[in-house]
């Protein structure tokens, strides 16, 4: 039998904030529960029926009391709303200096990949006191990435990227659960988050058997799938040159622009016809069913790495990752 707990550990910057709001709500709950239960017991005893024929005479006029007990609770709930919304707002905006990690949920496991190329299944190693941004995709049904010690949860919906972030504050080992019912072995889709001292994390990163960084693997895929036949770096291809595109606004055929973020690249690979870049023909075939979500994030990471400015290191601060060269050869478009 495991150790008995009443309250979860706090292991992220978000956890104490959520818990403080919880304490406030608990206080309000206890107050009103005691008030109502107390009133019921008091009235029930004091005004119990003493003779069969008694008839209470109470005149109730005006709405003073009703107004009072509508307005006061409403005021209290607005405090709850504002407080809860402000926590949610922070929890939805990853800071710019967060390190980037990718997660793919599939029945019934979590696959995680670090930019350096380290891959894990049902385990996630992260450094303490460092913001971590998770970009997540699903191979099949909806999953939900839930770390109770971090008070964080985000559904992972197939067909799009979902993002969450957290800053762990205490080294240790914490539960990772799938919180959205995902089929037969849903309760087996669990794992551990290991929060490590930065030094230990660096050692862990360099210790594994990673075969190249995500961007490098993405580059290999880019060539295997013959993407480079059309997306040439000298602007001579049938598809747009991807160098320096990530994070920019892209002019679309038929007017309008779109921000070239992860979601845009993902969509462009799977549904190339959805948004056509101005000046190009809609000739790209779909890669739906040909690339897995894990390969997609590698491709995206590769495109991100084709940044305009030279930079180095694994830290992704939004839009200027390490530059990589791509080769360009051949002339026929990839097809199914």
């Amino acid at each position: 039998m495991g150790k008995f707990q009443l309250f979860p550990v706090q292991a992220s910057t978000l956890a104490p904030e959520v818990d403080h709001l919880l304490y406030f709500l608990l206080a309000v709950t206890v107050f009103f529960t005691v008030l109502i239960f107390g009133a019921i017991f008091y009235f029930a005893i004091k005004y119990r029926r003493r003779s069969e024929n008694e008839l209470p005479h109470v005149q109730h006029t005006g709405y003073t009391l009703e107004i009072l007990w509508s307005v006061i609770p409403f005021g209290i709930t607005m405090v709850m709303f504002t407080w809860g919304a402000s926590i949610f707002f922070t929890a939805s905006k990853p800071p710019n200096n967060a390190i980037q990690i990718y997660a793919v949920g599939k029945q019934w496991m979590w696959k995680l990949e670090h930019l350096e190329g380290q891959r894990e299944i049902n385990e996630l190693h992260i450094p303490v006191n460092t913001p971590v941004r998770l970009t997540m995709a699903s191979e099949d049904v909806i999953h939900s990435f839930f770390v109770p010690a971090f008070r964080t949860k985000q559904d992972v919906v197939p067909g799009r990227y979902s993002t969450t972030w957290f800053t762990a504050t205490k080294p240790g080992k914490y539960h990772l659960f799938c919180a959205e019912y995902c089929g037969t072995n849903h309760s087996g889709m669990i794992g551990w988050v290991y929060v490590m001292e930065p030094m230990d994390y660096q050692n862990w990163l360099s210790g594994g058997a990673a075969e190249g960084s995500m961007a490098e693997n993405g580059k290999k895929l880019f060539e295997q799938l013959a993407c480079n036949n059309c997306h040439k770096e000298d602007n001579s291809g049938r598809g747009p040159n991807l160098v320096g595109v990530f994070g920019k606004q892209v002019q679309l055929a038929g007017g309008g622009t779109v921000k070239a973020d992860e979601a845009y690249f993902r969509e462009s690979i799977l549904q190339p016809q959805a948004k056509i870049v101005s000046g190009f023909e809609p000739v790209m075939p779909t890669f739906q069913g040909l690339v897995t979500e894990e390969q997609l994030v590698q491709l995206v990471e590769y495109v991100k790495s084709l940044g305009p400015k030279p930079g180095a290191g694994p830290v992704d601060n939004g839009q200027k990752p390490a530059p990589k060269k791509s080769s360009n050869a051949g002339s026929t478009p990839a097809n199914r």
Partner: protein
Amino acid sequence: MITAAAQEREHYLNASYGLKSWLLTKDHKRIGLLYLATITLFFFIGGAFATLIRVELLTPQGDLVSSETYNKLFTMHGVMMIFFFLIPSIPAVLGNFFLPMMIGARDLAFPKLNLLSWYLLVVGGLFSLYAMLAGGVDTGWTFYTPYSTTYSNGYVVATALGIFIAGFSSILTGLNFIVTIHRMRAPGMTWFRMPLFVWAHYATSLIQVLGTPVLAVTIVLLFLERVLHLGIFDPARGGDPVLFQHLFWFYSHPAVYIMVLPSMGVVSEIISTFSRKAIFGYRIVAFSSVAIAVLGFLVWGHHLFVSGQSLYAGMVFSFLSYFVAIPSAIKVFNWTATLYKGSISFQTPMLYALGFIGLFTIGGLTGLFVAALGIDIHVTDTYFVVAHFHYIMVGGALMGYLGGMHFWWPKMTGRMYPEGWAKLSALVIFLGFNLTFFPQFILGYLGMPRRYHAYPEEFQVLNVLSTAGASVLAVGYMIPMIYFIWSLRYGKVAPANPWGATGLEWKTSSPPPVHNFEETPVVTHGAYDYASLMAEEVEVG
């Protein structure tokens, strides 16, 4: 009221005999009893699933049944309890029986439609039962896509079809009630003389008529997607799985109010009767039912805070969710204030009504937690939510239903239930319920996700407590089942008005005559006028 005379007098139960006289009846009272038998069966089937779930969760390992079976158990528990027990419960049994009587009508506006509604529920229930016997369904009662459309191997279509059919039962019942309340009130029965039970049913009917068609549409889309691969919810075809959640909760959140509003109506009747006082702030309580029904349609997105819906949509839905809290809070305060300077007696219906207020208060207040965006991130899809909605739907809706059953049992059957046993079982249910579900709040905040067949060891103690509570609760539900049946033969013969209540249904004999009243009542004062009632009794002697 001489016993022998009461026995011989013709009433709706002895006016005709034989299976045909029941299966083809157009009498709202008999149809109410048909519903009672039907939903009691569904309740015990749903309860059996719950029992197996709780026994499985005694140990952290999934060792009693396989994961696949466990997933089917919680799915079928949810489907049975929600669509085939809770949604029909009070409206279809007590509403059917008493709504016409309370407004002095001879029947509902459309008696044949009323019978059809019952048949639709039975056919729908049989479809879902067939699906369960044939192999079950494992999607959860929420049928989230794309699991339900692409990945599940269960009998999704048959189950959903059962719910689709039962939905029409709900729509037609709602329609029947609305028309009846508008058109069939007795002379003098103005809107603000109607009992609050009738107001609550009016509000409920609005939701049934306006919300249930959306569920029907959603099920049709689910069917088209699963069978014809239409692509509405499939991202590979440009669809969106989250769209399903929006459609589903657009009905299923208001459906919570279909379950709990009628229960609030019952509680208003009971609190008033057993404190011999008009409900404090009658009009406010009446309007708050309608307010809950209307606002209930505007909050569905609070089920989707972590689904990836936009940040600002999340904020709007959180904001609106707090609005629903207000009319609910008003009701609780007004019931409590009704007790003030009342003449309070503690027969079983009153125990259930007070139990309702207690459990609904906890259920409602924990609703404030899940409506707070910052906390919902952590507790959504955990046992905290499971505990919260059981406090509302079992602690609230079911306590109200049982309170109402005891309150009106003498009128329905002409027999009293045994008071001592009834009080005991009310107490057992109250304690068993809290022991079952209170630990789940703690479990949820600790992070135990719902729908988990196996769980980490540190959650075991609380799960054992919860299962222990469920055993107590099961006993609590069995006792009324036994003594209600017992009372049909051995119970004391009930007088016309055993509680000294003011409703029109108490002004006719128990059980009522076929046409409810010997002559159409004329209403001269508002509901809950105990002074005139007692004056009349003095006159009659």
